[in-house]
């Protein structure tokens, strides 16, 4: 199955060593059993919906999905941001400490479409990401969606144009960790003040969730953008470019 790591671009579509007959038969059998389970056994009537509805008013937000993600099961979300961080650490180039966040590079060929896209679309995406984050409390939306949009804007802004983000700079790393760090800090502080991990006091729950979500959005955005950029320049090549500080 994974014995051979096949990297031949024009290689055969199928793994020549795998046996079609056995695989198809076993997967089909599997499928049939699972379908039988779905057809013959009823689901649990309501799942956890009654519990969520019962506690929604004290969660600080009115969107039930956000309430589950950032209040009832916030611990899962915290660990999930850690998963993202693992991948970023694994793919970031071993760093060179003395560099600033954003660099200016000389562009030889101006692509009119990309430049105008960058000029017009990126701010709009930025705005929309902010809206998604803010709306997440009451409507569909939230940190992950906003973060992904922001990452798209980052890629658009920085990969094609004049500016380039140095993802190994201390600033970029702070942005990547701020989501997890803020989550952990709030969680531990709440042990001290409220007596339990991630137990938001009811009056401040909305504010704290928004705070954590903002940090998470920034982190997710820059993490996803760095994943993209590290895939593009894998053999870390130096840019003969003028440095420019600030973000």
């Amino acid at each position, binding site marked *: 199955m994974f014995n051979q790591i096949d990297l031949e671009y024009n290689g055969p579509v199928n793994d020549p060593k795998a046996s079609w007959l056995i695989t198809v038969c076993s997967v089909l059998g599997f499928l049939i059993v699972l379908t039988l389970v779905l057809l013959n056994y009823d689901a649990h009537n309501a799942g956890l919906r009654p519990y969520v509805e019962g506690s929604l008013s004290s969660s600080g937000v009115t969107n039930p999905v956000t309430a589950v993600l950032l209040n009832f*099961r916030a611990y899962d979300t915290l660990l999930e941001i850690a998963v993202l961080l*693992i991948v970023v*650490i*694994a793919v970031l180039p071993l*760093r060179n*400490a003395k560099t600033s966040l954003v660099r200016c590079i000389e562009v030889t060929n101006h692509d009119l479409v990309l430049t105008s896209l960058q000029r017009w679309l990126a701010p709009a995406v930025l705005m929309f990401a902010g809206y998604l984050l803010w709306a997440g409390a009451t409507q569909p939306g939230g940190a992950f969606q906003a973060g992904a949009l922001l990452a798209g804007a980052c890629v658009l802004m920085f990969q094609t144009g004049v500016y380039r983000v140095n993802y190994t700079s201390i600033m970029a790393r702070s942005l990547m960790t701020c989501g997890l760090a803020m989550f952990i800090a709030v969680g*531990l502080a709440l042990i001290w003040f409220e007596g339990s991990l991630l137990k938001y006091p009811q009056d401040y729950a909305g504010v704290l969730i928004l705070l954590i979500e903002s940090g998470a959005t920034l982190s997710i955005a820059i993490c996803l953008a760095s994943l993209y950029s590290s895939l593009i320049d894998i053999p870390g090549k130096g840019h003969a470019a003028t440095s420019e500080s600030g973000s």
Partner: protein
Amino acid sequence: MTSLSSSLLLPIIVFLPLIAALVGFMSSRNTFQGQLNIGFAFVQFLIVVLMAILFLDEQSYQSAVYQIGTWGAPLGIDLVVDGFSILMIGLTGVLTLILTIYGAAYYADDPKSLRFWPLWWLLIAGLNALFVSGDAFNIYVCLEIIGLSAAALVALQSTRTSLEAALRYLLVGLLGSLFYLMAIAILYRSHGTLDLAQIAASSGNGLPDQVAMILITIGLLLKIALFPLHFWLPQAHANAPTPVSAILSALVVKASLYVLIKFWFEVLSGSTTFGASQVLGVLGGIAIVYGSWKAFRAKQLKVLIAYSTVAQLGYIFLLFPLSEHAANTSSFSGSASQAAIYFIVAHACAKAAMFLSAGNLILSQGSGDIAQLKGIATREPVNVLIFTIAGVSLIGLPPSAGFIAKWLLLTTSIESGQWWWVLVVLSGGLLAAMYLFKILSLAFDNTLDDGAVQIQPKALSSKVLTSSALVLALITLALGFNAEFILNISHPPVGVSGI
């Protein structure tokens, strides 16, 4: 503040490694890096010891529960510890301390340490989070943390073979987690909850649970690398940096094993059958023989040790048929489970010691080929001694932890009337002796080589590297004398048979 109890420390042992990872990621390379990480490991060790003492002091042997956000079980996530998880956390704490000291010396002046430390701590956070988790979906997230960070650590060397091993390891890990997630979806559909205790309480409605159990078993067997699914393990464990190899063999495969045992004996114990457990036992038996044979044929020292892991994992799977027969209902409390728990601990310490000493030998010799080890005992007597002690434990000779573990297995299989497992265990020991004596006889062979070029020995391995391996070997020996201690942590004292 309310009186301190072991459950209050549960979030701390998850968050401390996470904080250490963040610090490691933010800090640049400096001279304090090693000390800082050893400090974190030491604090974690102290917390774990405190937790174990408190847990044993509470003496009820009930599981301690920590409700995150005080939401409580079905809605929120509960952290739960019982005897088994306290033991695994304790094992993680001890091994983390020793391996961190080793890693600090191993990565003392290597730019890769920038990537190593955060990944290392995230892996440990994942392990700790897994061992305290009481929620099915949370376990999925923990499995992913462990799988991704372990694959990233294997890729750390950036050689072609290690990248290939890491990619294969990553894909297998992702596939295993997806199987697990599918099972969770089915369980949620029929039980309407994700809490393990509540699933266990409402368990036993036939086909859905059995299908979920099959999916979980397949997924986790992929991650544990039981015999037909072991294909990824030797390359991944052999091509990782030495401290990573040690933790992969000692703890990471055990983490998936922990989840499997938890589901098999606690959560879905109603859906397991005698036949299924016999299948697992047979696969374990084949793994013992096959892994030992491949280890005997291995050309590289680390590949040999990795195949030995495949074989040793087979012993733990004898737990399934043995405990099934013991009391007609499968429960994780009989003498078979004691044997398995003891085996997990013994193998973790012995295999970690063996990987560390092998890493030292390879560092000193400059090559991982077994043929190059000829006569190394004169130059690296301590490391060869450590290797020998670990080997003695793996073979199961007295006085070592491995001896007690095998003894428990043998007595259990005789008690339960399944004598055929005795033959498997004994022949496994013989095969282990074969491949380990092959190494040792080479190491003590001082005759001059006839044709081959003598490799110029590199610098002797540093004192820290050697002594941390030595500590592990001594722990392995000490465990052979203090069997009751381990068994009492994991279970209420019932009198260990045969000791």
